[in-house]
């Protein structure tokens, strides 16, 4: 019976199907010359084959040669549509909790700290996130603005999470993991659907969606969604003022231009606002910091176009173009970011034993950081370019049992120039029930504007005798000479399907880091601007941290009965980071190591009850974060979904059943006040027509 989807999917299939390179049509002439490509060969008469033979044929559009299946030599976890439906989660971030090895900590209503294999933080910079292949890792902040990533859950086909470096294919910043959110094709979301829901801490998401077909266009869908989530209490018990409102809408079209060409276009526009309590500098004239209730307002839009062409069953190309604009700010900062991306990829089989993917891409970002007292950048506007190319070859050393994949990505960025990220992976599949893989990879985390150009004024202190009657300003500067953070990763894993009722997947890893960012004190000096004249205490980034992390991730699926499955999981990480002597940084190592939980465990149960009711329960245990004073917690969520009729679906969900309030993250370097997660009930109704 079906093995858990996380167990079998090909790496090349990831690269091919997972929207990583993007395309644009510009001329009919081009289509004409493409039509010249020779296509047919000898077509075997398939009706002569028996059913059993037909059931053994591989149907990928790029053939994996005469072999059964290639296993993915990586720590991959797939969240399927069924997992999404049964989880009762209302947003992508809560769904990610079920991935062993991912740290998911909610900071307040609209902010999350999500990372893989350590280094968690609000802007965790070692995790690459893509939606249909469009990068949503923000190159200016070096992190993901999670409050802008709201894909309606019932339009998600699956979420693929790879823990470990994916840089050889996906690029720098895929240092500790890659999350790829793939939406359903428009053909799979036909008809209309209205969803309405509410709970004790939120109203919505309310969504309306409609899909249809149009001659010439193919299939399309469009949607509109909105929600309002109420504020959470702060640690002190006050209203956190972090309520979050969002409204967004989008569309997708899937067109078959010919039997061999498909075109996908997608777009989204969104607007939201979320509050927070942040400790910030207010004025230097009369040196003043305060904890202000700020309201972040943001809006943006993005477009994606991808053209896939199947040249033959052994060769396919893909061209993708994306554009993304976002503007956000509150009274203390104001930024606008525009990113344009074009990527080409070609995937083909070479001979009987090799499967090659290669590609080239270009990204240009234009940003504008309007100077405020709190945040400014030099220069105020900057255009940054990124050139990249990659190649990967999967070689069947022993077809059916031993495969070696070698690859590398070459990049050039405006801050640190040229870098290479190589990877080698070996997979051994002695039989269809077992698979062992191991990998060695290198990955770089390249700098963003926040690392190089930005200046943050953190704190103002009043004038005193000791400071020569001048006020004091504590500021943090980016370092234009900062280097890439580098990782060498060694991983190995084992997957087993003992019976069709029990499967297990385990991974161990050992990561060596160098040139990790440290905070270095600069030399105190007198500064004239911003007025009035003051004593400046500067600090900046250095690359004086290094060290290693190692750990284990294991999860299993146990099908205890035809209608009941249990999924336990466990992840462990130990971090040993050090500072070079000579660096004055005494805090970062301690804070980083204490920012990720050492142990995490989970147990999920999904059961199908009579009358088309499904009952799911999830329990998550997360160990403490001692440097943040976050105690360990166990979170229990449970819910029911009932398919009441052909068109109607009703669900009720309870989150945080065990404890009314718990803290998940309280970053000591962050200025934002964390909220306590509350026990909440939520119900929703969905009607399709």
């Amino acid at each position, binding site marked *: *019976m*079906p*093995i858990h989807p996380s167990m*079998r999917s*090909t790496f090349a299939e990831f690269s091919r199907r997972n929207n990583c390179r993007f*395309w644009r049509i*510009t001329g009919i002439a*081009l289509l004409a010359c493409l039509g*010249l*490509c*020779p*296509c047919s*060969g*000898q*077509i*075997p008469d*398939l*009706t002569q*084959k028996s*059913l*059993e033979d*037909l*059931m*053994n*044929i*591989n*149907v*990928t*559009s790029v*053939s994996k*040669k*005469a072999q059964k*299946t290639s296993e993915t030599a990586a720590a991959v976890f797939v969240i399927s*549509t069924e997992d999404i439906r049964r989880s009762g989660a209302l947003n992508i971030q809560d769904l990610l909790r079920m991935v062993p090895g991912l740290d998911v900590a909610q900071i307040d209503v609209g902010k999350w700290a999500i990372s893989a294999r350590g280094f968690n933080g609000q802007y965790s910079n070692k995790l690459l996130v893509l939606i249909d292949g469009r990068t949503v890792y923000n190159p200016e902040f070096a992190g993901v603005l999670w409050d802008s990533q709201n894909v309606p859950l019932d339009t998600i086909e699956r979420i693929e999470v790879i823990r470990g470096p994916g840089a050889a294919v996906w690029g720098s910043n895929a240092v500790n993991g890659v999350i790829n959110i793939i939406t359903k094709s428009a*053909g*799979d979301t*036909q*008809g209309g659907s209205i969803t309405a829901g509410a709970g004790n801490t939120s109203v919505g998401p309310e969504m309306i969606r409609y*899909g*249809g*077909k149009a*001659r010439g266009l193919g299939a399309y869908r469009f949607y509109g969604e909105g929600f309002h989530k109420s504020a959470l209490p702060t640690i002190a018990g006050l209203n956190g003022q972090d309520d979050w409102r969002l409204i967004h809408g989008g569309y997708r079209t899937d067109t078959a231009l010919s*039997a061999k060409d498909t075109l996908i276009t997608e777009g989204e526009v969104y607007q939201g606002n979320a509050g927070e309590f942040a400790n910030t500098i207010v004025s230097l004239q009369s040196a003043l910091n305060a904890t202000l209730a700020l309201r972040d307002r943001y809006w943006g839009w993005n477009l994606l176009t991808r053209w896939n*062409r199947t*040249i*033959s*069953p*052994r*060769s396919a*190309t893909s*061209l993708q173009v994306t554009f993304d604009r976002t503007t956000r700010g509150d009274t203390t900062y104001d930024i606008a970011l525009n990113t344009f991306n*074009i990527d*080409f990829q070609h995937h*083909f*089989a*070479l001979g*009987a034993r090799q499967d090659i993917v290669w590609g*080239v891409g270009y990204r240009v970002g234009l940003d504008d950081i309007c100077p405020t007292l709190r945040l400014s950048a030099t220069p105020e506007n900057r255009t940054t370019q990124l050139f990249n190319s990659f190649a990967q070859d999967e070689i069947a050393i022993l077809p059916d049992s031993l495969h070696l994949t070698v690859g590398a990505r070459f990049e050039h960025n405006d801050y640190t120039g040229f870098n290479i990220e190589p990877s080698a992976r070996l997979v051994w599949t002695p039989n269809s029930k077992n698979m062992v893989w191991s990998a060695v990879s290198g990955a770089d985390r390249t700098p963003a504007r926040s690392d190089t150009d930005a200046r943050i004024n953190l704190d103002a202190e009043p004038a005193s005798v000791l400071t020569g009657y001048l006020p004091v300003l504590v500021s943090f500067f980016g370092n234009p000479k900062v280097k890439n953070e580098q990782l060498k990763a060694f991983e190995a894993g084992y997957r087993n399907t003992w019976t069709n009722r029990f499967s297990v997947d385990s991974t161990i890893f050992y990561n060596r880091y160098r040139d990790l960012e440290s905070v270095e004190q600069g030399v105190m000096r007198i500064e004239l601007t911003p007025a009035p004249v003051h004593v400046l205490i500067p600090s900046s980034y250095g690359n004086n941290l290094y060290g290693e992390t190692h750990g284990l991730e294991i999860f299993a699926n146990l099908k205890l009965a*035809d209608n009941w499955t249990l999924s336990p999981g466990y992840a462990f990480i130990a971090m040993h980071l050090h500072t070079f002597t000579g660096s004055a940084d005494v805090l970062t190592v301690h804070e980083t190591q204490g920012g990720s939980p050492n142990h995490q465990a989970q147990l999920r149960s999904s059961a199908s009850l009579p009358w088309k009711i499904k009952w799911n329960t999830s329990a998550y245990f997360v160990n403490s974060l001692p440097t943040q004073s976050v105690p360990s917690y166990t979170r229990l969520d449970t819910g029911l979904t009932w398919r009441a009729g*052909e068109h109607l679906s009703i669900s009720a969900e309870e989150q945080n059943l065990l404890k009314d309030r718990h803290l998940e993250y309280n970053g000591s370097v962050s200025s934002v006040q964390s909220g306590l997660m509350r026990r909440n009930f939520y119900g929703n109704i969905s009607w399709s027509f």
Partner: protein
Amino acid sequence: MVFLCLFALVSGAPGIARAQTAADEYRIKSAFLYHFAQLVEWPPGTLNSGNASLNLCIFDDEPRLADLRSTIDGKPIGLRVFHVVLLSSSQELQSCNMLFFSRDEARRQGAILKRLRGQPVLTVGESADFLPNGGMIRFHIEENKIRFDINLGAADASHLKISSQLLLLASVVIRSNGTGLER
């Protein structure tokens, strides 16, 4: 533009030798449809006695039509001949013995399956809710291979007899009382 030239260059490259074990998905599915027709018994008198044909109906805006037709149109099934009939609207269902809905047909299939309930037409589809809607056989892909599930209840209601050989090869067989049986 470098990218487009590259695209054109690569896409126009001479074809690489085709592997024998890989084939287009819909050609394989049409071979499956051919086998289904041989392993299902229609109630006596319902197959077109006049022209000894067995008709598989497909909607004429189906983009993969060519694949479906070229593989099986005109092939013999026992004493009959397999014919692929194109439908331009759902009005013409009378001559159909089998009806195939590709995965983009999710919108149309609900209404048509309702109309065909109890009728001796073997319905084959691909969308996720095909079987709950009353469809009889549903294709899906697992690990790059084609598999199928059978809704025996719907077939029984139409008095179509599905051979045990076909039931054994199915991944999931849903019986008439609604419980699934997985293998």
